[in-house]
């Protein structure tokens, strides 16, 4: 596949944005600007960016607890993402969601989800919705390797196959669910073998090679757009950090992590593009991304907190002819 210079550089930019976003998020977590929990996708950028590069603007993405990258790659506003992690009113979810619920529906990012495989049927529903409304969009449904053992994934994959809906189930196989190796949770050689059990194609691709991922994803999304149904794409990848930031790493060796660092997707792609003579562009992009992150964080840090008085406001839509749906405040307040 011959890709244009612009396109290649845009892939690099996205990967770098994801990488730097995640690293900055950890910094802010260490500084206690972010609380709760964050699941870093550093190491998985090629998989994330490669798949989403195969989508159009009107297409949808659903994601998981490890979803900052998916959101950013689909076009979420980076400042609003930081603001969300900081719990601010101008965060993309108005500070109500947090890391595991990042969403930016305006750009087709339907939501991260903190329940493993919880968003898989939503992907099928969005695909059905597109079909019924004649919009011909596809849905990239991101999950982790361990999520394929969850009932909701199964029901969703089967239903997408029966209804021949354009869902690309993308299994980012980083080899672990928390501390548990994939060999301890399925008896399969490769997870894409599960696709046959639904009557859909299954493809495994090197998840550290962004162009390979892109090519594989494009073939499968085009297939979906032609009405030929869903597919399962497994990307073989790795996360360097603990399951969530700060979790112990006792279950894997330093050697293993180091060996994967040799296959770092951002680094490898940079080498490749530099070899093609794009060094100056790469440098420029690096500077721009650095600047972009700094500006986004600076902006987000100045954003207001949500007003406690509005705490119950978003539970219900207020277009029903009924009394007081806004929830009830506790009895005693000063």
């Amino acid at each position: 596949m011959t890709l244009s210079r612009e396109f290649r550089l845009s892939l690099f930019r996205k990967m770098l944005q994801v990488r730097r976003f995640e690293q900055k998020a950890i910094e802010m977590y260490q500084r206690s600007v972010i609380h709760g929990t964050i699941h870093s996708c550093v190491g998985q950028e090629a998989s994330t960016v490669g798949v989403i590069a195969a989508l159009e603007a009107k297409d949808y993405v659903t994601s998981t607890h490890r979803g900052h990258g998916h959101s950013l790659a689909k076009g979420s506003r980076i400042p609003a993402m930081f603001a969300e992690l900081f719990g601010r009113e101008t965060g993309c979810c108005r500070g109500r969601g947090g890391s595991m619920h990042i969403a930016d529906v305006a750009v087709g990012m339907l939501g991260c989800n903190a329940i493993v495989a919880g968003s898989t049927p939503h992907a099928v529903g969005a695909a059905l919705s597109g079909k019924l409304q004649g919009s011909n969009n596809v849905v990239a449904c991101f999950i982790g390797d361990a999520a394929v053992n969850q009932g909701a994934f199964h029901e969703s994959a089967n239903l997408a196959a029966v209804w021949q809906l354009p869902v690309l189930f993308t299994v980012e196989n980083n080899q672990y669910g928390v501390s548990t190796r994939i060999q301890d949770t399925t008896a399969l050689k490769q997870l894409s073998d599960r696709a046959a059990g639904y009557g859909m194609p299954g493809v495994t691709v090197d998840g550290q090679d962004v162009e390979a991922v892109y090519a594989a994803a494009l073939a499968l999304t085009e297939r979906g757009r032609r009405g030929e149904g869903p597919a399962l794409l497994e990307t073989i990848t790795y996360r360097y950090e603990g399951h969530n930031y700060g979790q112990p790493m006792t279950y894997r060796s330093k050697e293993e992590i180091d060996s994967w660092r040799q296959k770092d997707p951002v680094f490898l792609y940079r080498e490749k593009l530099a070899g093609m003579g794009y060094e100056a562009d790469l440098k420029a992009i690096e500077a721009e991304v650095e600047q972009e992150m700094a500006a986004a964080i600076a902006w987000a840090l100045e954003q207001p907190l949500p007003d406690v008085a509005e705490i119950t406001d978003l539970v219900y839509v207020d277009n029903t002819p009924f009394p007081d749906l806004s929830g009830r405040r506790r009895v005693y307040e000063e």
Partner: protein
Amino acid sequence: MAMRELTMVQALNEALQEEMARDGKIFCLGEDVADPYGGAYQITKGLANRFGADRCRNTPISEAAIVGVAVGAAQTGLRPVAELMYMDFMGVCFDQILNQMAKLRFMLGGQVSLPMIVRGQQGSGRGNGAQHSQSLEAFFFHTPGLLVVQPSNPYDAKGLLKSCLRQDNPVIFLEHKMLYNVKGPVPDEEYVVPLGVADICREGSDVTVVATGLMVNRAKAAAARLAEEGISVELIDPRTLFPLDLESIVGSVMKTGRCIIVHEANKRGGVGAEIAAQIMERAFDYLDAPVERLAGLDIPMPYAPHLEKAAVPQEDDIVLAARRLVREGGLR
């Protein structure tokens, strides 16, 4: 208003027919909902024939996918109506109800609304055993983000379902298997029943009875018998558990000073506890006796018919409770 006698099945079917004709974004999905079967209880009969297979879709036996697909479709512009053949199957899709359907709007900071309905029948009375006879409203009632609707007659069923289809919150719509074939008057003309407004089925002065679902009919019969003995019952059917028309209930209790809540679901942690607690909070000084609850026993539903009957409140139970409450001061 000109009226016809319809069953609740027919009334619900009419609501879907009318609203689907009005709004092209509404579609139904579930197990065996399409024609010729038209649903295990025929609620969706004729919809596939009339509106096409796309708008009334059979699914695999995959309730998590059924509800989850509805969530995804609602999030992207449609108005799904998902049928659970028995509400008892909420167990296999409860994550999609509790953690997705009910919370998504809030978690996403209001970016989306989820105009969707999960509906189906529940309750005992047909010998279906412990896994097909439950009354599950308390689970939904305790879940912020959902509306919970529980009609007791064809008129309300139709009018409430139409209201639900014209607003943007996710709804759990609870029908009762033993009410499906009971007939009642339904207007020829178009109408809706507002959400959050209780029905005062009968006015009275001695005791307020709050009954839900199938229990409304038992309470009506009991009230008629009690009237003959000189006990005047004010009977309230909340119709929607959330939003709950507490004003009507509390107002009535302030008048009568006594209240019995009757529901079929088992007692411990049931909806009756919340209503009782709220009555106490708001009408404490008006109460002549503790609010009483008649409810299902805290057991799985037994199969043998006489046990099944003994497991839920009957007309006689209501009569006895009212008599003792009014004449002997109730529980104390």
